[in-house]
């Protein structure tokens, strides 16, 4: 960010992009928050108006302003729906960057997300202690770390993480074939190592060689959410460097959020360097759709399958139909589509820790629509959605299983 942008509450740098918003209100209809609250102040259009007022010096952008700007799932629906191509996602990230400049970020959060999350080694240690802390007391340490955020959920997160993580147990094979970089992402690494292994297995079954850089963990999404743009830039540079000179043709991740951030935020952060990298980034759905190789295995899966479209997959990467097509292509799988299937699980990263009740409300709505469709399994393509949906299903007393697309496909291999 430019030096002038660091001045207290100077939003004037955003003015030009804000002017693109014609206040047509199209984005209201897609925003999961506005659809619940019907409050203009909490709508994407309202947020842009607040930014505009702040940029024009008509609004003292302080506590309530900050609260409203952070009351956003970052789901990208508004940007995808805007007929006038207002890049709300980047505007909101930039706004948070200005905000963090003068309103600050709780120091422990800053440390956690800018130092620990990006590093697999440090994260392992943090997760280990967090796990113990979570098990001992759901408050305590985590309360300290997350400040204003509600600690219990975060504690819940650490409590259920899987040991050892994927990275800790992974040994790179020296197999031949086109090399594909695998960006594991923090959640699959710590919570769903089996899924990460299945992604590698899938790649190998398809004749590729997986390349997994060590000591990469976070894509930068939480940093952007907190407004730590400079730190996010550093992290983006590190991620790009980790894949340099490894001979990989593409980079794949099983997390739709990571893919969306690398594909769309990195260019915004780093310009051309980010663009060059982004071009070769794929989430698993996009990769399977565009790689030109057939899916392995012909085994059958019996049952009704529902695909939950992660916001970053459907809105950011625009791959909702492709994901469903993959599922439909699996023999035996009967695809079921609930009414209003394009709903957010309500997680939204840091959003869910700051607004646990609201997040749970959105989640439970989603769960209801899933249960109404009576599937035999739920498949998704983002570990965060998966956790959120799993939690919701358990709360609703359902024993329904949630799988990652990679688990679903490799299950098919073993079934065959």
């Amino acid at each position, binding site marked *: 960010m430019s030096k002038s942008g660091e001045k207290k509450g100077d939003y004037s740098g955003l003015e030009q992009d804000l002017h*693109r918003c*014609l*206040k*047509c*209100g*199209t984005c*209201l*209809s*897609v925003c999961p928050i506005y659809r619940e609250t*019907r*409050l*203009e*102040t909490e*709508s994407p259009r*309202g947020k842009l*108006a*607040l930014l505009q*007022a702040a940029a024009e010096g*008509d*609004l*003292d952008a302080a506590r*309530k*302003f900050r609260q*409203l700007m952070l009351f956003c799932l970052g789901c990208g629906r508004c940007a995808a729906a805007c*007929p*006038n*191509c207002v890049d709300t996602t980047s505007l909101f990230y930039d706004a948070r960057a200005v905000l963090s400049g003068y309103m600050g970020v709780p120091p422990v959060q800053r440390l956690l997300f800018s130092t620990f999350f990006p590093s697999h080694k440090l994260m392992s240690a943090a997760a280990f202690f967090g796990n113990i802390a979570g098990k001992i007391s759901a408050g305590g340490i985590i309360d300290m770390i997350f400040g204003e955020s509600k600690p219990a959920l975060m504690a819940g997160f650490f409590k259920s993480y899987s040991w050892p993580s994927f990275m800790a147990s992974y040994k790179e094979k020296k197999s031949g074939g086109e090399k594909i970089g695998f960006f594991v992402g923090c959640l699959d690494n710590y919570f769903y190592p089996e899924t990460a292994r299945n992604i590698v297995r899938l790649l190998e079954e398809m004749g590729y060689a997986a390349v997994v850089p060590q000591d990469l963990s976070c894509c930068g999404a939480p940093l952007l959410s907190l407004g730590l743009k400079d730190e996010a830039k550093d992290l983006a540079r590190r991620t790009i460097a980790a894949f340099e000179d490894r001979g990989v043709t593409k980079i794949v991740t099983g997390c739709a959020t990571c893919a969306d951030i690398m594909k769309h935020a990195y260019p915004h952060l780093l310009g051309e360097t980010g663009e060059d990298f982004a071009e070769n980034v794929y989430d698993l759905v996009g990769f399977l759709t565009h790689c030109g190789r057939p899916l392995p295995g012909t085994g059958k899966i019996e049952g009704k399958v529902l695909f939950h479209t992660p916001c970053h997959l459907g809105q950011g990467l625009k791959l909702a139909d492709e994901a469903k097509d993959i599922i439909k292509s699996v023999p035996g799988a009967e695809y079921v589509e609930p009414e209003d299937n394009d709903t957010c699980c309500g997680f939204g990263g840091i959003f869910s820790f700051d607004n646990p009740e609201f997040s749970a409300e959105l989640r439970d709505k989603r769960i209801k629509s899933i249960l109404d469709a009576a599937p035999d399994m739920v498949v998704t393509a983002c570990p965060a959605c998966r956790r959120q949906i799993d939690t919701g299903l358990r709360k609703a007393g359902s024993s329904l299983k949630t799988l990652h697309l990679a688990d679903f496909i490799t299950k098919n291999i073993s079934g065959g």
Partner: protein
Amino acid sequence: MAEYGRLTEEIKNELKEIVGGKNFHESPEELVAYAYDASAFRFKPDIILRPVETGQVSRIMKIAYREKIPVVPRGAGTGLTGGSISLKGGIILSMTAMNRILSVEPANLVAVVQPGVVTEDLHRAVSKHGLFYPPDPASLKSCTIGGNAAESAGGPHCLKYGVTRDYILGLEAVLADGTVLRSGAKVMKNVVGYDLTRLLVGSEGTLAIITEITVKLIPMPKSTVTTLAYFGESKSASEAVAAIISKGFLPSTLEFMDETSIRVVEKFTGLGIPSEVKGILLIETDGDTEGAEKSAAEIEGILRDKGAFSVETAEDEKKRDKLWHSRRSIAPALGQAAQFKLDEDVVLPVSLIPEGVSKIKEISEKHGIPVAIFGHAGDGNLHVNLLLQGMEQKHMEAAEAMLKDICGYICSRGGVISGEHGIGFLKIPYISMGLDPAALSMMRRIKNIFDPCEILNPGKMFPPEIKA
């Protein structure tokens, strides 16, 4: 000019007690967010109230009436003429919390809804019963039925099926002094007394606050055929519109795009519309499958006759959607093409559409401001978009002069200056051009009876200097 009272802390507390703290808003942030609508003009209110039931609306109005506080009802704020902006401060009455569909009654072919229901949600709810609520403003995913009723919104379907006004059978509304009034009934015929329902529909929040709406439904047509036709001349496309109607066809949609609209869409979306295309018609026929197909085939004959060099039809949803793509891209593309655009939605008798298109182009050339003309031409409604290269005084003055010419022309040919978007405050300068003086004066008197203290949406619809 009416004198307004001050919203003292005491009055605010009284109002807060009615709606509860959660639905009472006055922070600087909230005032910013409720200062605009889709006209993008801005005036801040003093407070925002979100009633959840008619009783609350009535109690709010009683206080506003007693204290002479302006009240502006607001739906989703997608209005294009500044209708839900509070020009004189006071209260924004946000109706979005009253958003329940109270009943869908297939046996009576009606639905009863609260005003904050989003139009698309009503469409969805009734379609589950095989029923159809035809009014389809392009903003239907966001706008509210209350806003539609207050503007008598229309859309492509209105050529065949009529506008919002034609689908409202009854209303509950709160008058300026807090009295709750019910008009109409759940019946298709009703000649008992004056038709107050029709008076309140289209009244833009200047006569009463609409709190419940009974809408008429019809059976959902079984199938729809979409036809997209390319013409080498804008003129032949507009002539085809007049020809289709005069030959006795009533398509469910008949949309027109002129050359400028097409070029702008192509520039900003790269849809691949060939450069020789200078006019586009998008037509839909509906009904039972056979009828829809037969009409489409006959209309194709007319299109070819009038010089269409490419005609494409589609019946399944995905393909139909594709044919709609260029039409749907116009508004956003125009947004990018100009620094600022003014969207006028004039209406002419259908037979005059070809003349109107040429004449408006002439006026545009005379004033040196490009226009894109498109719209629901089948019902005579043309969206005339002035593409301005700035918002400064000189641009606005030039635009105003041009609008005067356009409105003058439209009125001289028996047309009207707004078919859908209403007057709000943006079109006030032109209202007296298009209205018979006796009618305008009667309207003022009606306004006076409904709202003697001018607290309901003040500054809208009527030019202030003309007083009855």
